[in-house]
């Protein structure tokens, strides 16, 4: 709880936006690659993961 009060002070808006957008972009890239990308090699490697996360794939 103490940490949340610290956070609003020490992280500037532009830092927050940069970190947030970076995190969203890298995260989306990783999830897309593991879960949705149309590559047979990626698909076969991630097969069981794709099924158990319920990604729509093949």
């Amino acid at each position: 709880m103490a940490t949340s009060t610290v956070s609003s002070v020490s992280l500037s808006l532009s830092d927050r936006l940069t970190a947030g957008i970076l995190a969203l972009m890298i995260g989306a890239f990783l999830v897309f690659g593991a879960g949705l990308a149309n590559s047979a090699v990626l698909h076969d490697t991630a097969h069981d993961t794709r099924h158990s996360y319920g990604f729509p794939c093949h």
Partner: protein
Amino acid sequence: MIVKTLLAAIVAGLVAGVFMTAAQELRVTPLILHAEQYEGEAPATGEPAAAGHEQHSSLKANAPLGALLASISPVTPAYAHEHGGEDEEGGIMFGMSRFSGTLLANLVTGAGFSLLLAGISVMIAYPITLANGALWGAFGWLAVHMLPALGLPPELPGFPAAELGDRQTWWVATVLFSAAGLYLLALRGEVISKLAGLVLIAAPHAYGAPQPLDISSNVPAVLGAEFAVAALATTLAFWIVLGVVSGFINDRFVKVA
């Protein structure tokens, strides 16, 4: 600070990915293997042609289903399935075993979801802490798994399904709508926001998920039911671990979520 935030998210994601792999091996993978035994018997007309290719893919999951999809698809000749017309060779990258492929995929997926969660948390200035981590995780699960599963339940190999592109589009749209809706519903005080959140969550389901034209399958329905429950249960556990570990790392090492 930025790097620290990203690193914290990645570490939490990797931890959750390892946990997910263990949970999958116990609860989910046996059902996938079981279903694949039936999958080869798929009553598709194009199967003999595809049967030879099946050997190339170490998982045997693609060719019969591709043939099945081709036979039920209204746009048969030019259908854009993911395997490039069955010509592209599949196989697990770097010659890894099936298990290590799954582990790698879980680590990547875990880091990916963790970064998405952290990104949202940073953007809306609502830190993930140890105290609220489980709740963050539960909302992630609702947005990414439970709500989309209402339209497109987690499917076993060999299950009938609609055209891939339609399903992926619907799925991604539903995840985005659900996430936005949950944010409005849970974190905004105004009644109008909450109503808008409900509308956003309901909208993809009112529109309707793409459904297969022919739902016959050789895979027993009981197996499908067990699988859907196991998949949703393990992903819920994954997200709660992810949220709690993220919160712990943020509290302990980052101090700024």
